[in-house]
């Protein structure tokens, strides 16, 4: 007898034949239940709307895979959770592979080509060792995860019933499923080791030391007085227990959040899909947006089902943090519950998702950025807002702003003729790009042109351009609000009107490149405008400053020692990945940049975006996002200046200083201000 014949696992060790048969029957049942659930889900996805504008490419899929395998999205920002999930992920994967190998070896090769069976000999030893390692990883990961819920009691893993959200599953139901999922996998892992222990105790093969934990369990059983005889007799029971729990888990997957193990492979590819940032088109038809559950695309339905309730979107959402009624996680859970059991003639916005949730969103994209499985919260919210706008169900103030934008092209309700008023106090005249060609066409944006707190900064940038000898001009009355935020408020038609006017004016004006002092306009110009002819490359003013300083056109004359922190605007950072130019500028000025805990793609929204700046504050507000943010800046040792690069930030944070009483401790300054001091 060759050694390889011995060093192998007796798969149905000491089991009566009928039990083996029963096992195969149970397998069939479990697979049947799984297939049924999965088929129902997949059929629902397949019947979902298809958005021809949102295509999955191999590249995106590859990016998704590259993020999933090392659990990158989970590790980012929460190493504890990341490591725990990595353990579970790879542990589970290992055990899954192990089980599959056994299946192939024992249920296929054994009958067809027995000489090809491979689970024996030294390969078996390595296999055993790896399988045990996987089990240990799984157990460790599960314990770490359980601790987050039981020991650390992380607040974002808790649920609350929400007013008006009757489709949001009850907190207890959600929590039960979370625990069941964790616990079940735990039982499975423990059961596996027990089974191994019993088998080893019963057969006592010395080579099984490779199953290092299983061996220990066997030893422990022996120490506890279990004879190999008794182990042999009990084996069938332990085996049955393990087999049943495993099969039941398989059957449960399509009926629970365990489904994410499959769905996420697909959805993760959409996290970096451009449409998550530039918004998909509204479905064809009357409603203007998402009216009913049928309007959801198949992909979006997979996204909803992929949600694991990890709570990251919830924990980092400025609306949730501020005490607005919205929680992106609850939104996803509500839609998911409804989509799997829809009620006819129920409108999504208002009927399923309370309107107040939808209006709370600042479109900051933090949820999308944080979501490990690639859920599209922002597109979903905007689609439902589009429906509300089409129905005329919107906030009074927002409505006024829309009227102003329609009529005057700015949200301030000012005459378009007042747009260039800010230039009057300048000692030089800015070129009118409508009349003469310029190198650099500057789109100021509304706040920079109309808000008296911002116009000094706007003039400052004009002076800097002038000083650096840049040939630049503006569109005077012809510029319109970029429409970026009104689009996010759900008024697509108005966005198009504004875009058309801007595109016409910009394309007519001779220019080499576009620069804007407004990150929201930056995003729209760069990624969302539909140009008919050419237009210049779009730059944010911090990029221009960076370039001018770098090329020596704006020499830094007075470097100043200062400790500052910098706020990444959502539409510059998360939307466009522009993080370094402003930081380079600050360093060039001699400033020491102290990062806030939430920086770059984890930056915390000021609360102004997505049309929020035009809406009424919720009455239940706990702490405005801007207040939260200035408090964060104020915790940094020795930092007295919060540098911003967005006009709305200036307004929001200066206001927040007043309401938090941090005036005097912290100053909010536009980066232009610091450059002016250092170069003038």
């Amino acid at each position: 007898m060759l050694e390889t014949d011995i060093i192998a696992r007796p798969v149905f060790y000491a089991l009566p034949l009928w039990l083996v048969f029963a096992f195969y029957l149970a397998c069939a049942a479990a697979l049947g239940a799984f297939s049924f659930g999965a088929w129902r889900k997949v059929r629902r996805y397949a019947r979902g709307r298809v958005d021809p504008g949102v295509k999955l490419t191999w590249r995106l899929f590859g990016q998704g895979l590259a993020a999933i395998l090392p659990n990158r999205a989970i590790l980012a920002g929460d190493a504890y959770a990341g490591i725990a999930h990595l353990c579970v992920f790879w542990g589970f994967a290992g055990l899954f592979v192990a089980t599959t190998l056994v299946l192939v070896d024992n249920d296929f090769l054994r009958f067809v080509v027995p000489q090809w069976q491979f689970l024996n000999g030294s390969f078996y030893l390595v296999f055993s060792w790896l399988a045990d390692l996987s089990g240990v990883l799984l157990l460790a990961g599960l314990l770490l995860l359980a601790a987050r819920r039981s020991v650390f009691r992380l607040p974002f893993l808790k649920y609350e019933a929400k007013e008006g959200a009757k489709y949001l599953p009850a907190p207890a139901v959600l929590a039960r499923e979370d625990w069941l999922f964790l616990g079940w996998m735990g039982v499975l892992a423990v059961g596996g080791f027990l089974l191994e222990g019993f088998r080893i105790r019963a057969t006592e093969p010395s080579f099984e030391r490779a199953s290092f934990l299983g061996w220990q369990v066997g030893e422990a059983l022996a120490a506890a007085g279990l004879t190999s005889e008794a182990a042999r007799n009990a084996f069938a029971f332990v085996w049955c227990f393990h087999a049943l729990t495993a099969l039941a888990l398989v059957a449960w997957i399509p009926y629970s959040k365990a489904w994410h193990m499959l769905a996420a492979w697909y959805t993760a590819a959409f996290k970096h899909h451009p449409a998550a940032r530039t918004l998909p088109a509204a479905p064809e038809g009357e409603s203007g947006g998402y009216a009913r559950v049928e309007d959801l695309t198949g992909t979006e339905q997979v996204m909803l089902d992929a949600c694991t309730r990890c709570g990251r979107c919830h924990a980092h959402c400025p609306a949730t943090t501020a005490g607005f009624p919205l929680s992106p996680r609850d939104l996803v859970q509500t839609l998911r519950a409804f989509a799997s059991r829809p009620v006819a003639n129920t409108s999504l916005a208002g009927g399923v998702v309370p309107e107040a949730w939808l209006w709370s969103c600042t479109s900051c994209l933090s949820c999308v950025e944080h979501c490990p499985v690639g859920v599209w919260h922002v597109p979903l919210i905007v689609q439902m807002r589009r429906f509300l706008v089409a129905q005329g169900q919107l906030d009074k103030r927002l409505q006024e702003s829309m009227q102003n934008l329609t009529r005057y092209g700015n949200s301030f309700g000012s005459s378009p003729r007042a747009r260039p008023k800010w230039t009057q106090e300048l000692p030089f005249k800015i070129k009118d790009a409508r009349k003469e060609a310029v190198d650099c066409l500057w789109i100021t944006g509304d706040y920079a042109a109309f808000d008296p707190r911002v116009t000094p900064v706007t003039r400052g940038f004009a002076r800097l351009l002038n000083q650096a000898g840049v040939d630049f001009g503006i569109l005077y009355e012809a510029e319109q609000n970029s429409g970026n935020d009104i689009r996010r408020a759900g008024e697509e038609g108005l966005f198009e009107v504004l875009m058309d006017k801007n595109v016409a004016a910009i394309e007519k004006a001779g220019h080499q490149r576009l620069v804007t002092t407004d990150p929201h306009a930056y995003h729209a110009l760069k990624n969302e405008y539909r140009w008919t002819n050419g237009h210049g490359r779009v730059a944010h003013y911090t990029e221009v400053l960076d370039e001018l300083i770098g090329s020596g056109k704006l020499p830094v004359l007075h470097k100043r020692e200062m400790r500052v922190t910098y706020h990444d605007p959502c539409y510059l950072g998360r939307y466009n990945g522009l993080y370094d130019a402003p930081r380079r500028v600050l360093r060039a000025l001699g400033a020491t940049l102290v990062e806030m805990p939430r920086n770059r793609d984890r930056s915390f929204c000021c609360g102004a975006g997505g049309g929020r700046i035009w809406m009424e504050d919720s009455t239940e507000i706990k702490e405005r996002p801007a207040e939260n943010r200035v408090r964060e800046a104020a915790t940094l040792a020795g930092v007295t200046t919060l540098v911003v690069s967005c006009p709305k930030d200036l307004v929001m944070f200066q206001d927040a200083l007043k309401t938090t009483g941090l005036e005097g401790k912290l100053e909010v300054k536009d980066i232009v201000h610091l450059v002016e001091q250092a170069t003038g």
Partner: protein
Amino acid sequence: MNLLVLLKMVPDVVEELEIASDGAGLDMDVARMALSESDDHALEQALLLKERMGGTLAVLAVDAAEVDDALFTALAKGADRALKVDAGEVAQLGTRALADLLSQVIADGHNLLPVDLILTGTQAIDDLDGLMAPLVAHQLGLPYIAIVIQVTPDPARRVASVVKEYPGGVRGRFEIDLPAVVGIQSAERPPRYVPVAKVRAAMKTQRIETVQAPTLADGGTVLAEVKSMSKPEETGRAEMIEGTPEAASARLCGILAERGLV
């Protein structure tokens, strides 16, 4: 319920107003026209009534710059018909002449009669020679009430219950026989926003009926002649009251008393 809303375009005061070279009118090349604010409320109230009680809703206006926008917007919001009276040189007409024109058009038919309620704004910023609602009521021989913030028709009894505003938050409830002309101060809710897409759709699928201006009996005599116009002295900044707090408060008290505020 047959509802008719009278709309009027007025110069948009958000824009700088310029005086024409003759010194007796606005420079209409510079001015932009906008729907009178309280007319917008009248339209909203009519839309609410139509939604509540059914029936038809027509809007009627005399031609003016940007009136088409206002009419298409009304159609997009849910009006059934929009009529525009083509009266040639209209910008110069006073409210009285406009009211005469509109009353004549209503009386002439155009399928606007029978009507149960005629709604329009209580007052417009350029109602120099009279208010639209009472003038139309007078011409058509209908009862009239204004500064109304709530209208509840009772078609069976041919009456409407209306609530009008008095000073100091007091309101008064009246009963008015139908048909009637009601001047709306503000609708029950702010005028709705209609998305651009809907207005565009209305422009494509609906049309504005143009009505030739009827000839008026008295030829639209001008009864109030604007001799000159001027801009009030540009202050821009507050007039500062100097002196000790005692003196300043006394002075301020005087100013308030002058205006009947104390």
